[in-house]
Structure formats: C-alpha cells, structure tokens
C-alpha cells in the first residue's frame, strides 16, 4: 500500500534526521544524509508505482546522481579538514584550526 510505504519512508527520514542531529563524526553524518535522500527516493518510487505518477522516476534518478555527487564533495571536505586539523569530528575543527 502507498500509505505503508509513506509511513516507512517518513520513519527512515526521521532516523536520518536523528542521525544528522545527534552524531558528531563525519561518517555517520554522511550515512544519515544518505538516509534522508533514500527516504525521498522511496517516496518517489512508491508514488510512481501506486499512484501512477511515472514522472517522479526521472527525479529519483537525478536524486541518486545528486546524492553520489554530494557524498563525493562531502568526503573531499572531510579529507581536507582531516588533513589540516587531524580531527574526524566537525565540532572540533574550529578549535583545532584556531590553535
């Protein structure tokens, strides 16, 4: 059912939201961001299947490409921050950099 899929997608989005706000290391923040995007893709796919909104599928493909790009940029920022501050926690970057 469409409503069941939506319910699980909202639950996945909530888990991702919890991960983004509660975790403080880069990698788990990336995991959580990908969960947010996966929840949106799940909503698009289920609406395409159950409601016949097949126009949503190209948006889902674009979202996948965008999420991969976003992860690439994020990992590069992580690598740059780690190179200069030797920290894997975003909150510590400012303190480490100011020394």
């Amino acid at each position, binding site marked *: 059912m469409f409503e069941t899929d939506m319910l699980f997608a909202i639950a996945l989005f909530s888990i991702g939201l919890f991960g983004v706000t509660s975790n*403080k290391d880069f990698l788990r923040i990336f995991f959580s961001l990908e969960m947010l995007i996966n929840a949106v893709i799940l909503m698009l796919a289920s609406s395409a299947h159950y409601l016949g909104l097949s126009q949503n599928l190209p948006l889902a493909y674009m979202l996948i490409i965008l999420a991969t790009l976003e*992860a690439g940029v994020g990992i590069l920022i992580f690598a740059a921050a780690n190179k200069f501050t030797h920290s894997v926690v975003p909150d510590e970057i400012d303190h480490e950099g100011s020394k």
Partner: protein
Amino acid sequence: MNIVILTIVLALAIASLNLKKSIAALISFALMMLVLGIYYISLDEKLLGLFQIFVYTGGIGVLMLFGITLIGVEFPITKKNPWTAFISFLFFVLVVVFGLKNHILLVAHHPEIVESKELFANSYSDFVIIFALIGSSLLYATIKMINVLNPKRKKNV
C-alpha cells in the same frame, strides 16, 4: 512482504548509526541500500532498482570506504545530544498525523486528485533547472576542494 522488507531497511538503518565498528556500520548501511534496491525491483521499477544497487550503493560504498581509512576501525566517542531523539520522534508523529492523515482523507474525499498527473508535470522543468544548477555548483565545489587539498603544488612540474 513489503512490510517485512521495509522493516529490515529500518533495522539496518538504525544498526548503521549505532554500531561502534565503522566497517560493520558501513556494511549494514550498504545492505540497507541494497535491500531498498531489491524493494524497487519488486515494485516493478527495475531500472531504478538496478540504478540504486549499482550506482548508488557502489558509489557511496567506495566513497565511505575512503572515509573509513581516515576515521579508523572504531568511531570516536563523542557526546550525544539527548533531545535529538525526542525531536526526531516529534517530527515523525507530526508528519504522520498532519501529512499522511490528510493525504488519506484527501484521497478518500477527492479520488480524482490521484489521477491528476499534471500536478507534478507542470513544475517538472523547474525541478530540472534547479537540480542542474545544484549539480553544477557541486561539481564546481569539488574542483575547488581539489585545489584546496593541493595548496603547495609546484608551478614548474
């Protein structure tokens, strides 16, 4: 069957955020996306499922492996904010109550809304332009970040 697959997805998502070993967390995260891809295939969206498995899971998996080489075998111990779980749960309840309930009532009272495919099609070109702009700006940020990573590049090489 759908409920079983999606419950596995949620369990793997929670596991990937709570496991202390980074490689175990990455494996559960990749499994989560793999199961989602299998779910899309079961929904008859075969291309989206294959795209999810090969492009998304593969690409993100390799990128996160690179992150694990920097982070180490175990995640660092950090303080967790206790109120974030409450806020996430509140978000879930609010969206379900006001969003999903309204959708069910809307479809029950106005079934013709589900058939109106123009709702999305009218704004589709705007989405394409916005996503192209975001994608190109991300690519530009990637190139700039590569320059930041190599600040001491020699000119006469």
